[in-house]
């Protein structure tokens, strides 16, 4: 009704019109600003996408027919860009071998391998070397040309001019935007990682590191398209491309250091099922993950509901004070309090062992560590359960409780047969979403136990959840495996989707909500 009438109203006031024009002008300005780098980089697809988005925005706010669109477009655009697109990309990545050693395309991989065979040619350029890690962890050579002092950033993908770098007295790059520069000590320690790193500058030329300097030269290696192989004329080694795994392999199966991205189909998923090193622990994590989520919901709900029952009595003294104290754990910054709990569970000086007179090594034993995360999570979560239980208790129909009382149901019986079922009807959706939240409760595990305890050589710890395990696979200190980590994420998606489906089924009788 309303929408039909307001269709004729349009932009009714002068202020409204001015605001509208101003906002659209701002959008246009932003669009031009955003288009410039895209044109500079000749990224035509991105430009087309941007133009489409701007067109949608302008169309939405200049037309008068579909009013709801005007209210839905901003949120929907954000939703698509930063929630739906990442989910789609995660699924895509899970079918590839993307990760350390497989970051680039095939051509770039060939160039990098060829460049690694570079021998110094007389008169070639030489550089002073600093090493930086880019924000996404890629090793980058930060080079200063000894001839003219210009600065360059080189990766296995190629060489780019580096603007805005600060050099120290010797001329070496000391500080560059977007890079974490290694200290000299670090450079000495991690020299090994640089041995195979080379920056291609042409088909058969490249820059190679030697100690703290680098030189440009010609490579003894060359790529031959007819056999899809790389030959090193100095050593006689031949690498053949293996398009299945995205690597160059020698006759006896040695892989060249740099590979490329290929689709690997369901390999990442199959690895979970077939690789015994992964399968066993993965199944264990899965079971613990469910137990942790269910246990957290049960414990927090039991404590929260217990207190709510205790305080739900009109005329009881001190309820306000009790309530104020009890929501404190909910109001405290949770990340900091988890870190605090981590200290309180310290074996030697921690408060928990101190107060209880124990000397439990909370981080060393699997079950101690699991108890620890559950205790801390109960502390964090019970106030929320308390608040919603109290709210639901007070909203219970008084007549059914009265009727139960008249029938002689008192105390525990009344609670179990009348109050609890009625409460659960109202609270089930919240309990299920609490389960879903705890299923992926990254903070409590990462900040409290960090997944500990780890048995020697195991990649999975006793308290690891799937999400912390996937995160470590992708961004941990050992080599990054984005493909596998994405597969685990997709796996989590599927579980959570199943939970949601169950939730929708159980609450279907509340359909009127959606009308």
């Amino acid at each position: 009704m309303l929408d039909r009438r307001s269709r004729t109203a349009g932009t009714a006031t002068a202020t409204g019109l001015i605001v509208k024009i101003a906002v659209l002008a701002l959008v246009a300005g932003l669009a031009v600003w955003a288009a410039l780098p895209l044109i500079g980089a000749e990224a035509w697809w991105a430009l087309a996408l941007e133009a489409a988005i701007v067109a949608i925005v302008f169309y939405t706010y200049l037309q008068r027919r579909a009013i709801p669109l005007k209210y839905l477009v901003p949120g929907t655009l954000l939703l698509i860009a930063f929630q739906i697109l990442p989910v789609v990309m995660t699924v895509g990545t899970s079918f590839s071998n993307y990760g350390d050693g497989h970051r680039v395309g095939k051509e770039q991989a060939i160039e990098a391998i060829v460049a690694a065979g570079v021998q110094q040619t007389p008169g070639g350029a030489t550089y002073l070397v600093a090493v930086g890690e880019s924000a996404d962890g890629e090793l980058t050579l930060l080079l200063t040309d000894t001839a003219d002092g210009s600065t360059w950033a080189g990766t296995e993908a190629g060489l780019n001019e580096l603007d805005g770098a600060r050099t120290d007295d010797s001329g070496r790059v000391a500080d560059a935007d977007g890079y974490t520069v290694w200290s000299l000590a670090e450079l000495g320690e991690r020299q090994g990682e640089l041995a195979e790193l080379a920056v291609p500058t042409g088909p058969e030329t490249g820059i190679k590191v030697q100690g703290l300097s680098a030189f440009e030269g010609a490579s003894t290696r060359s790529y031959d398209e007819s056999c899809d192989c790389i030959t090193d004329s100095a050593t006689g080694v031949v690498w053949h491309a293996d398009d299945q795994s995205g690597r160059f392999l020698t006759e006896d199966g040695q892989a060249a250091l740099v590979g490329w991205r290929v689709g690997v189909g369901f390999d990442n998923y199959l690895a979970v099922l077939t690789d015994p090193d992964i399968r066993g622990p993965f199944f264990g994590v899965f079971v613990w993950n469910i137990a942790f989520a269910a246990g957290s919901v049960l414990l927090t709900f039991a404590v929260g509901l217990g207190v709510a029952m205790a305080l739900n009595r009109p005329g009881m003294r001190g309820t306000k004070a009790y309530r104020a104290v009890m929501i404190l754990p909910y109001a405290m910054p949770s990340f900091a309090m988890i870190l605090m709990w981590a200290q309180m569970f310290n074996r030697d000086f921690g408060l928990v062992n101190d107060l209880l007179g124990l000397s439990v090594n909370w981080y060393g034993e699997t079950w101690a560590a699991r108890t620890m995360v559950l205790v801390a999570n109960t502390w964090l979560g019970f106030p929320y359960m308390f608040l919603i239980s109290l709210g639901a208790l007070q909203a219970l129909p008084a007549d059914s409780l009265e009727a139960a009382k008249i029938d002689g149901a008192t105390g525990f019986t009344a609670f179990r047969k009348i109050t609890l079922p009625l409460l659960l009807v109202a609270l089930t959706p919240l309990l299920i979403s609490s389960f879903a939240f705890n299923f992926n409760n990254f903070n409590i595990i990462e900040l409290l136990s960090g997944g500990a305890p780890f048995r020697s050589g195991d990649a999975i710890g006793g308290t690891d959840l799937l999400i912390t395990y996937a995160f470590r696979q992708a961004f941990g200190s050992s080599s990054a495996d984005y493909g596998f980590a994405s597969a685990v994420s997709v796996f989590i998606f599927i579980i959570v989707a199943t939970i949601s489906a169950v939730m929708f089924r159980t609450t279907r009788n509340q359909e009127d909500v959606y009308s």
Partner: protein
Amino acid sequence: MTRTSATDRARKAPKRPKRRGPFARWAADTGWRHLVAILVVVFALIPIVYVVSAAFNPTGTLSATSLLPSGFSVNNFERLFTEDNIPFARWFFNSLVIAVPAAFISIFVSSLAAYAFSRFRFKGRRPMLLFLLLIQMFPAFLSVVALYLIFGAIGDFYPVAGLNSKLGLMLVYMGGALGVSTWLMKGFFDTIPKELDEAAVIDGAGHAQIFFGMILPLSAPIIAISGILAFVGTMNDFILASLFLTDRPEMTLAVGLKTLTAANSPASYFGVFAAGTLITSVLTVTVFMSLQRYIVSGLTGGAVKG
């Protein structure tokens, strides 16, 4: 289950003569309530008392800290603001600069959508509402790898919004704008009588005037609650912030304070960490306590309405 308890009741009922003394009656009626409440209050308070005690502990190490304070000094607070490698004020500032606008914009965008869902009937409305309920079950950090790649690419073109930028992180937080809060607000808007809208239309108001001039002001409580929850959620985020912000002065409180804990810093930083925690909590606790009433009704409103 049902059958046994019926007989239970029959057996128990006659066994309840009023032969108990006044104390026993008080204990059965109210006493246990205080007992339960006090036990849980102790449980709730222990870590908080410990934080306070650690923050004012003169030594500042874990081993010298006990539940009840053994001394008093503001040394830890001084170090928090004076030491060069603890840019606490910067961290605090960063957290606010990210969380306040992110919460504000999320709530604004979310309330727009909630208005559309509450007041208009259009094709795809129901599926969209259900989809929002579904998508909020997938937290943004599940697709961290993809977010990482996306913002790596964005950073190539627009360094202001790439990795290691506050704007990039804000965009991720705002991506989750439509979700729970949209549902909460839609529920609240539904309770505002439609007759008000119709009266406004007769007076010549357009849809925008109805929304900004009438619905928004009338919904102040729910908007405050959604805003607070979004703000606190953003303040508490660790995983995305630790991924996006790696330069020490650029960190948020969550990422920065973690660098002060045992695994990453000398033992004497424990007191400093506690002091930082205490200052952060003063902010969040004040906000919570002042809006306590709304929070209870806001959360349960969501419970009843799905």
